[in-house]
């Protein structure tokens, strides 16, 4: 289903539709086939214009077996079509899915939807009986048959898929190209032949305002590419030290492919080694990155403190998943924010930024690296499973439009007899200068113990107070380089301001648009430091409603920063994105 879904998405994108996808899969590699917990889903939302969410409810549900139907029937709109493989609805299948009666549709209360019950397995077998393929391989083509049907329903030409199949199998399995084309074609025709399909949709591509070259991109891919872009713009080789963990692994995997751009990946023995090798690489002068998800971030806590203390540039990517502990590894959540902000011993400030859509991961990762390298600080980039695995069409930018990245390297040579003072700061930014091992005369030592500006160990109370304050102020002054907040929606002042951060962007935007101009909306990409105009902007509203996929962590953070403001919370902790509908309701309640 994952492949079928993404093929359909790609095809729609090329056709010119806006789209957003959301794969939702179980934690098991091959979860027991046919059970409700084993259902793997792929959600595609297409529209004429830009689509901001994968959608709450669907127009077409494709359920290849009773379990898939059971798991997803509740998401069908009133007038949805439900397409099922009749062959899978036998006694065993029904039992495995835990149906108690014979009629799954009535049992689930969806008997009034448009039901298309087709013997897809039989039809696929029939279609390929002369193909010479073995029975197992034939069965796998079921999805292709179904895709053919979906193409008919959405009035999609098959050419894109044909050329995809040709490219994909040309070298290794040219013999399967024709059978796949055939079964796709047969599915399409079958759908057009049967009279049960009442209406086909045509989602006409909008006249895109923005011309250019587009591609689909997932958040994890975009994160990897954004880091590679920062490597290019800074001239520093990329080093990524990571340990695999769902849903962040794909970033490491993607970077591992791009050794051609000089990227080095080190799959470490654990998360601690991941970040510590990255810290070593940062010291040696690479653009250093470590990628992980919640539990891995916990393990990196101590070493993040080291990076803060040594004032080395480092990007820590956390693709959040459902917690606490191992939690719900394949589900999405925003519940690591507290940990990102506060999860270290001592006074240990780190810059924190968040991506708001799959494609935005590119810019967010680029920005994270730029801030890290120019401000000599570790930066946490918060992504989410929803963003990392999700995808959207993206107008491909040109690297010439991105700024250079200029780390504060030491210049020239030191006068004879003078010692390099590694923690002396730029008076404006409070950033220290960076001397790389290998540079003659700049020998110095860094580490986790408190030091003075000269880099000498110090337990002097006044020095400690000063360094604590300077490290905090250095991070605070990053705000000077950041864009100010702009309204995403609604008037610049009013009774209610909706606030979001991270991957809820698309859902909240859709919700506030639905509500209209009575509400305003602002979205935070920068969490620490906050954009410079945050306080002023907040002061223009009566109430502030923070919507987030946790128990109110950003709201609490804002309350602490802006005491006296009326900051309210709308939260969801279900391992699932918001539904636009529930947002609309929650927002309207505050109006």
């Amino acid at each position, binding site marked *: 289903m994952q492949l079928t879904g993404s093929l359909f998405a790609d095809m729609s994108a090329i056709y010119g539709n806006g789209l957003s996808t959301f794969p939702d899969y179980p934690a098991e590699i091959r979860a027991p086939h046919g059970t409700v917990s084993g259902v793997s889903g792929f959600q595609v939302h297409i529209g004429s214009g830009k689509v901001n969410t994968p959608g709450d409810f669907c127009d077409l549900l494709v359920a290849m077996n009773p379990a898939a139907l059971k798991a997803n029937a509740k998401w069908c709109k009133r007038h949805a079509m439900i397409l099922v493989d009749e062959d899978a609805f036998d006694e065993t299948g029904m039992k495995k899915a835990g149906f108690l009666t014979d009629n799954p549709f009535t049992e689930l209360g969806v008997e009034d939807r448009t039901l298309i019950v087709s013997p897809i397995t039989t039809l696929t077998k029939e279609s390929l009986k002369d193909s010479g393929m073995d029975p197992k391989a034939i069965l796998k083509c079921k999805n292709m048959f179904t895709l053919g049907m979906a193409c008919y329903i959405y009035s999609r030409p098959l050419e894109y898929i044909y050329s995809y199949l040709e490219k994909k199998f040309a070298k290794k399995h040219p013999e399967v190209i024709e059978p796949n084309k055939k079964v796709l074609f047969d599915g399409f025709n079958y759908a057009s032949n049967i009279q049960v399909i009442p209406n086909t949709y045509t989602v006409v591509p909008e006249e895109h305002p923005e011309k250019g070259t587009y591609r689909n991109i997932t958040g994890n891919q975009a994160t990897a590419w954004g880091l590679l872009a920062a490597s290019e713009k800074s001239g520093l080789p990329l080093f990524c030290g990571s340990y695999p963990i769902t849903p962040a692994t794909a970033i490491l995997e993607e970077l591992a492919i791009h050794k051609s751009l000089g990227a080095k990946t080190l799959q470490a023995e654990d998360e601690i080694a991941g970040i510590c090798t990255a810290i*070593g690489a940062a010291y040696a002068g690479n653009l250093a990155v470590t990628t992980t998800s919640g539990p891995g971030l916990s393990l990196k806590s101590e070493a993040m403190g080291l990076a803060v203390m040594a004032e080395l540039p480092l990007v820590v990517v956390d693709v959040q998943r459902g917690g606490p502990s191992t939690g719900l590894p394949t589900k999405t959540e925003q519940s690591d924010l507290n940990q990102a902000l506060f999860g270290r011993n001592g006074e240990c400030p780190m810059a924190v930024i968040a991506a708001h859509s799959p494609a935005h991961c590119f810019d967010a990762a680029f920005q994270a690296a730029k801030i890290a390298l120019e401000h000599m600080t570790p930066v946490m980039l918060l992504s989410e499973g929803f963003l990392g695995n999700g995808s959207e069409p993206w107008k491909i930018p040109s690297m010439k439009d991105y700024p250079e990245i200029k780390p504060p390297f030491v210049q020239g040579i030191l006068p004879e007899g003078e010692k390099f003072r590694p923690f002396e700061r730029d008076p404006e930014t409070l950033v220290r200068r960076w001397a790389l091992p290998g540079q003659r005369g700049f020998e110095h030592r860094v580490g986790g113990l408190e030091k003075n500006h000269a880099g000498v160990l110090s337990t002097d109370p006044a020095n400690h107070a000063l360094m604590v304050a300077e490290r905090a102020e250095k991070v605070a002054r990053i705000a000077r380089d950041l864009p100010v907040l702009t309204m995403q929606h609604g008037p610049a002042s009013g009774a209610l301001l909706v606030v979001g951060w991270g991957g809820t962007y698309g859902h909240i935007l859709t919700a506030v648009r639905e509500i209209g101009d009575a509400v305003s909306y602002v979205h935070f990409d920068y969490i620490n430091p906050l954009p410079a105009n945050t306080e002023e902007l907040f002061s223009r509203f009566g109430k502030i409603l923070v919507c987030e996929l946790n128990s109110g962590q950003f709201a609490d953070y804002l309350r602490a920063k802006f005491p006296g403001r009326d900051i309210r919370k709308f939260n969801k902790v279900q391992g699932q994105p918001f539904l636009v509908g529930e947002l609309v309701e929650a927002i309207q309640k505050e109006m």
Partner: protein
Amino acid sequence: MATLTFKDFKSDQEVRWCPGCGDHAVLAALQRALPKVSQALGYDKERYVVVSGIGCSSRLPYYMDTYGFHSIHGRATAVSTGIKVANPWLTVWQACGDGDALAIGGNHFIHAIRRNIDINIILFNNQIYGLTKGQYSPTSKFGAITKTSPYGTVEHPFNPGSLVLGAKGTFFARSLDVELKLNEEIMTAAALHDGCSVMEMLTNCVIFNDGAHKTLSDPSVKADHTVVLRHGEKMIFGKDRDRGLIYDGKKIRAVHIGEGGFTEEDILVHDAHTDNIGIHMALADMKGPDYPVALGVIRDVRDITYDDGVRDQVKSVMAKAKIHNVDELLRSGSTWEVE
């Protein structure tokens, strides 16, 4: 390249180890070995990076006038690995204690060895936690009475040599703090070894574990309790150099030359370069009263290093690549035009 002397490696920081601490001597040996290494390999001083974890011994970077990283407890090996992979041109030395490397840092230690990353690890083994004031370590003797084992420990210590070999180590040497000359020799060999070199230095913590290695360091008895191994030389030891190691079919044995029919002929010649890990394991494992403790370079074999592997792979992929910059990357695969 300027000729370097031991003074070039001395920093202006006061050395803060206790008077009499064995670490002083190891530092001195390192400051003496590095000029020779530099000479032999053509290294300038700025190419050296000294990395450490946390512990008394891990203070070493402050005393070396080189680039240095005093990281966090147990993580020196991971930091070293990152430095070396990021810039293989640098030459990385690491100081760590028995707690630092084998307790909290045990995992990074065995993985660096397995990967054969080209770093030089000096393991200061005083069989105690010095900095935290005298708790037992993973190398403390069974039954050791320390602050956290007032009734004696009930756990077996690691033999660092066995652990290194079990993790597929390519270089292992052992010595004592007081053996200044041998230590210079070992450090030079480690520097010349391409791969992960582990040097176990048995050091004396005068405050919390004084005399732990006395039988090996006391001039009056040490010749009988240790054998110094050198590649190509016979494994002879003893005050009168009348004892040696032989192979009796299945095992190594310590014998008196001239007794029981054993002549100097029978004495084994040390082969540090052999692939035969069984014999290196047996040598590393030797201990009293039946055996002398082996000092010197016990194993020194060549194998591909991780840092070379990473670098070469990047190079070869780059040479063949169709994508040369990010603009090309962004336009690779399926794209479409909106006009």
